[in-house]
C-alpha cells in the first residue's frame, strides 16, 4: 500500500499517457528519458532547481550563522535573560508555521520583497530557528567548561572560541540541524507559492512541478518525471545519510 504510489510514479515517468491508462502497473517498455527532458523544458525545471538550490543553501547558511552564536551564548550564559530567551525559542515548537502565512505575505509586501526569492531566504531560517537553537544549545552544553577556560587564558575571544573550540565538537548537532533544515527548505511549498509567485525566473521547483498539469489533458508521464526530479536530491542525501537522517527526524519529533 505504501509502495504502490511510489512504484506507479516511477514507472509512469517512462511511459506515455496511453501506456499509463492501458497498463498502469506494468514496467516501462523502454527506459527513455524523453519525459524527463520534456518536463525540464516545459516547466523550466532547470531554472526552478537552481532557484531551489539557491534558496536552500542560502537559508542553511543564514540559519547556522544565527543559531550557532545564539546557542553558544545560551549554553554558557547563566543569567535570567538567557533562560528567558531559551524558553522563547522552545515555545516556537508550538507555533504552526502555516498560521502566519497571511501576515508574512503582508510583511513581504511591506519590505518590497514580494515576489522575490530574497524574502523567502530571509524568512525560512526563522521557521527552523527554534529547533536549531534548542538542539545546538544542548550539544554546546556537553562541551566541558575547562576547554573554554583554557582557551580564554590564551586570550581567545568569544567568537574565536565558538569557531575554534565549540564548532568542531558539535559537528553532529550541526549535521542534524543541517539535514532537517535542508528537508524543510527544499520541500517547502505553500510559502514559496504565495511569496515568490509564478515568475519562472524566481519560483522554486516545488512550485514549478504542479504547473505541469493542464486543465485539458495532463501528460501524466511528464508530470511524473517532473515529480521524480524534485525527489532526486532528497534521495541522494538520504542514501548517504540514512542513519543520521532517521535519527534526526526521530529526535526532533520527540522534542515536541
Amino acid at each position, binding site marked *: 500500500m*505504501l509502495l504502490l*504510489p*511510489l512504484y*506507479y*510514479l516511477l514507472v509512469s515517468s517512462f511511459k506515455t499517457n496511453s501506456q*499509463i491508462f492501458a497498463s*498502469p*502497473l506494468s514496467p516501462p517498455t523502454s527506459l527513455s528519458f524523453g519525459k524527463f527532458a520534456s518536463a525540464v523544458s516545459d516547466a523550466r525545471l532547470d531554472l526552478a532547481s537552481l532557484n531551489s538550490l539557491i534558496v536552500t543553501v542560502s537559508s542553511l547558511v543564514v540559519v547556522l550563522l*544565527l543559531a550557532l*552564536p*545564539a*546557542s553558544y*551564548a545560551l549554553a*554558557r*550564559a*547563566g*543569567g535570567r535573560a*538567557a533562560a528567558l530567551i531559551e524558553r*522563547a*525559542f522552545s515555545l516556537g515548537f508550538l*507555533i*504552526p*508555521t*502555516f*498560521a*502566519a*502565512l*497571511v*501576515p*508574512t505575505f*503582508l510583511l513581504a*509586501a511591506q519590505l518590497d520583497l514580494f515576489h522575490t526569492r530574497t524574502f523567502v531566504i*530571509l524568512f525560512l531560517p*526563522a521557521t527552523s*530557528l527554534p529547533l536549531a537553537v534548542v538542539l545546538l544549545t544542548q550539544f554546546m552544553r556537553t562541551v566541558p567548561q575547562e576547554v573554554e*577556560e583554557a582557551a*580564554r587564558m590564551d586570550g581567545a*575571544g*568569544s*567568537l*574565536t572560541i565558538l569557531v575554534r573550540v565549540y564548532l568542531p565538537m558539535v559537528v553532529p548537532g550541526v549535521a542534524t540541524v543541517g539535514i532537517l533544515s535542508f528537508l524543510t527548505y527544499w*520541500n517547502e*511549498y*505553500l510559502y514559496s507559492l504565495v511569496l515568490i509567485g509564478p515568475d519562472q525566473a524566481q519560483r522554486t521547483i516545488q*512550485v514549478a*512541478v*504542479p504547473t505541469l*498539469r493542464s486543465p485539458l489533458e*495532463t501528460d*501524466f508521464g511528464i*508530470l*511524473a518525471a*517532473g*515529480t521524480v526530479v*524534485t*525527489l532526486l536530491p532528497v*534521495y541522494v542525501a*538520504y542514501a548517504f545519510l*540514512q542513519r543520521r537522517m532517521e535519527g534526526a527526524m526521530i529526535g526532533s519529533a*520527540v522534542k515536541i
Partner: protein
Amino acid sequence: MATTTIPGTPASHDLSGDAKRPRSRAQRAPRTTVMAVPALLWYAVFMIGPIGAIFVISLLRWPGMLARVGFAGLDNYRAVLSDSLFWSAVHNSVVQLAVAVPVMIVGAFMLGYHISTRPRGYQVLRVIVFTPALISASAKAMIFYGLFAPRGMINHLLSGVGLDGLTHTWLADTSTAFGCIVAIDVWAGIGYTATLYAARLSAVPESVYEAAELDGAGHWRRMWGIAFPMVKDYVGVTVMLQFLWTLFTSAQNVLLLTQGGPGNASTNLSFLVYQKAFLQSDLGYSQAAGVLLFVFGLIGMLVIRRAFRQSY
C-alpha cells in the same frame, strides 16, 4: 581583546570595561548572552511578529490587498461564526482528524512492530516506509493526482477486478473528494510514525518475545500486550504531532488537488484561511478564521497532552 568580536557591543564601551573584565570573567560565566540577540531579533521579526499580527488583522476590516483598512472590532468573528461555510469547514476538519489520526496511529504501530521483527527485506521496507517523510507536499499531491485521475491507477485496478461500479472521478466527486485528502494524510503520516515506533521497539531484547511465546502468547497478543506498552510514551507525542500536521498542513493538499471543491465538499479549516485571504481577498475574515483555527489547535493539543499524561 575578547569582546570586540561580540556583535552588537560598541567598541568604546569595550575599552572602558577592559581593565576589569578579565578578572570577573574568570569568576563567573562570560557574558555572552548578546550573541543570542541576532537570532532572537530574526525570530521576532519573522515568526512572533506575524503570529501577533494575525490577532490584529482579525479585528480589521480589510476587504482586499489594496483596499482601505478600517477597524471592524469583532465584526469579522461575527461574520465567521454565522457563516455556514465556516461550520462546514469545521465539520470537515473534525472528520479529517477523527479518521486520519487514529487510523494512522494504529496502522503505524502495526507497521512499526512488523519492521522491528526484522522480516525478510526489512531494510528495503524501512526506506519505503520512511519515504513519505522525505518528500514534499507538492510531490505527494502530484503522485495522488495521477492515482486518482479518471483513467488513473485506482480506477484501472477497480475495473480490473470487476468492480466497474466503484470507479469514480475521485477528486471531482462530492462524495469522495475529501476522502481522498484524508487518504493522503494517512499515507503521508503513517510511515514516519512507524519509523518512530520501530526505532523504539528495536531496543526490546528478543528474549522478551520468546518468553511471552513460551507462556502461550500469540502473535497478536505479543504485538498489543508486550510491544505496545513499550512505545506508549511515544503515542502521546505522535498523536499530538499528527493532530497538528493534519490540522494545519493539509491546506496544501486541498489547494493542489481539489481547491476545496467540488462545491465546498473538501474545504477544511486551514484551506478556508488560505481561500479567504488569497482567492477572495477578505483578509479580516481569513485571519479571524485563522485565530479560531489557532485556538482549536491549542485546545486540541492541551486535551491530547492531558489524555496521555499517564504515559509520560
